[in-house]
């Protein structure tokens, strides 16, 4: 509110009034944008250009002002590196699993909560809690729950007779990634389910009723009616989840730092440890650029698919 009030007060109540040009001059929109544009330019534009430059140099974190231009060396090196291949594969698995898991779980929960029942409002509100919780707190409680000695997860697994060998899930190359995925999806499914719930409101009830009346089974009705209405929303969510998962940092970094032996190392984790552990700013920047290009390809691809679907619909 303080912002609004301040802005209101700075507006002169009776300033110079111009008639005949009610829309202001042609510079008006630029003046409105200028402060925000300068801001984004300084804090995102300039650093991005610097990162692109860095990716073509060899630069140490210990002496960042001295860079040696090495051309495409960083790129050829990381693409020849087996560890980087594994990072790409881990990123791919992580992103796909996040998208499928969060959209799938979100859809299931949305369909469940879309039915009328007593206490539905409460249920919908409670379900959003994981998404509202800060990532730091989620990483902390997940790490505690997965603690090999006193964590509730291990105690539960032992009770039902499914002990994890060695007990330390986050230290196991086999179980660390699934544990991180479960935590990520737990945090994301409320968002996808709330968005899908509002998309489901647009499904005309008389159509589903008519389909059922015609003797269509539940599955067929879902595919022929519901799915057609929510398809664009599913596409949008898949795109959002992909982009968010490609840039997710805290949760993975705080739970495993990319370990054990690189089992949970995604592109962003790799780039951060290259910069701050190995102090190689050049290859860190190159890894980051690979991530940015992947995001760009995904966005371009999704627009292409959306256009094709539109043309088909016509």
């Amino acid at each position: 509110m303080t912002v609004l009030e301040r802005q209101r007060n700075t507006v002169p109540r009776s300033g110079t009034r111009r008639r005949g040009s009610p829309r202001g001059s042609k510079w008006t929109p630029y003046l409105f944008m200028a402060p925000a544009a300068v801001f984004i330019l300084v804090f995102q534009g300039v650093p991005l250009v610097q990162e692109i430059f860095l990716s073509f140099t060899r630069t140490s974190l210990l002496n960042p002002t001295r860079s040696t231009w090495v051309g495409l060396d960083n790129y050829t090196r990381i693409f020849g590196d087996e560890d980087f291949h594994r990072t790409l594969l881990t990123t791919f698995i992580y992103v796909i699993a996040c998208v499928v898991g969060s959209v799938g779980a979100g859809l299931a929960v949305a369909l469940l909560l879309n039915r009328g029942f007593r206490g539905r409002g409460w249920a919908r509100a409670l379900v959003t809690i994981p998404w509202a919780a800060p990532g730091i707190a989620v990483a902390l409680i997940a790490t505690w729950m997965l603690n090999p000695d006193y964590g509730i997860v291990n105690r539960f697994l032992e009770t039902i007779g499914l002990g994890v060998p060695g007990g330390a899930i986050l230290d196991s190359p086999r179980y660390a990634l699934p544990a991180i995925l479960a935590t990520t999806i737990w945090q994301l499914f409320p968002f996808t389910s709330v968005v899908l719930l509002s998309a489901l409101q647009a499904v005309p009830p008389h159509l589903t009723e008519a389909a059922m009346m015609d003797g269509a089974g539940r599955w067929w009705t879902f595919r022929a009616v519901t799915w057609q209405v929510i398809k664009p929303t599913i596409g949008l969510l898949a795109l959002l989840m992909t982009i968010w998962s490609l840039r997710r940092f805290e949760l993975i970094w705080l739970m495993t730092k990319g370990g054990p032996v690189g089992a949970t190392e995604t592109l962003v984790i790799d780039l951060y440890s290259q910069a701050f552990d190995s102090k190689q700013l050049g290859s860190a920047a190159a890894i980051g650029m690979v991530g940015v290009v992947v995001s760009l390809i995904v966005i371009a691809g999704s627009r292409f698919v959306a256009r094709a679907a539109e043309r088909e619909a016509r």
Partner: protein
Amino acid sequence: MRPLRIGLTMRILAVLVVLGVAVFPLYWMIVTALSSNSDLFAEEARLVPDFAQFGVFIDALAEGKALGWLRNSLVIAVGTTALSIGLGIPLGYALSRFSFWGKAFVTVVLLFTQMLPEALMVVPLFSLFRRFDLLDSLTGLILVNSAFVLPIVALILKGAIDGIPRELEESARVDGARPLTVLTRINVPLIAPSIAATAVIAFFHAWNEYVFAVTFIFTPAIQPASVGIANFIGELGTPIQTVMAVAFMFTLPAVVFYLFAQRHVVAGMTAGAVKG
């Protein structure tokens, strides 16, 4: 009659399972905070909070460190909210109401920023901050957090202004009001709910932010809670009950505010992403 009953029971069970999964980790945070040492490390886990242990919350605050963290987070979050909305309203207005050369480009840039990871930008921002003497200051964090949340704030507010009929502005213009007056007098009051929703988004973006805070702040006294709590992970000196009590006090405001603003926040985030 009978199959319907079974279906209904299954559905109620499913809803309860989903709710349990959604709520359990935060519930477990409370249980852990409110457990005595003997309960915590006992053979059998204690599954309900022991309210006799409530003093842990008071002790955590009285000790002073956690209170300082939360205060720093609050300063950063309030500053970020004010700055990003102050810059986002005029940007959203320009994108909504004017057609001008470069408009499509601006929209694409705003969407493009959504895919830049903080971890990528942290190195060049570090050198930028050193040059402008912004390292180790809350002001620096307010500036950078505002820049990162500004695009989504502007896109949501643009969508909100799109929804206001232009006719409402016309009469003010006929009276000779200037564009800025039209914006602050006519549009801003009408999009108040969307402003509130973006305020929640901006506030908790800054409240939760970790990467910049951990890299740019060196003095423990001005650390925000996200860094303080993250430092607990893997550290053994602090009792886990205190850790969970602090984490809970850090989490609670975020959850409560999202519950109130949920509908607007979700609508805003998808609208910002879809329509651009």
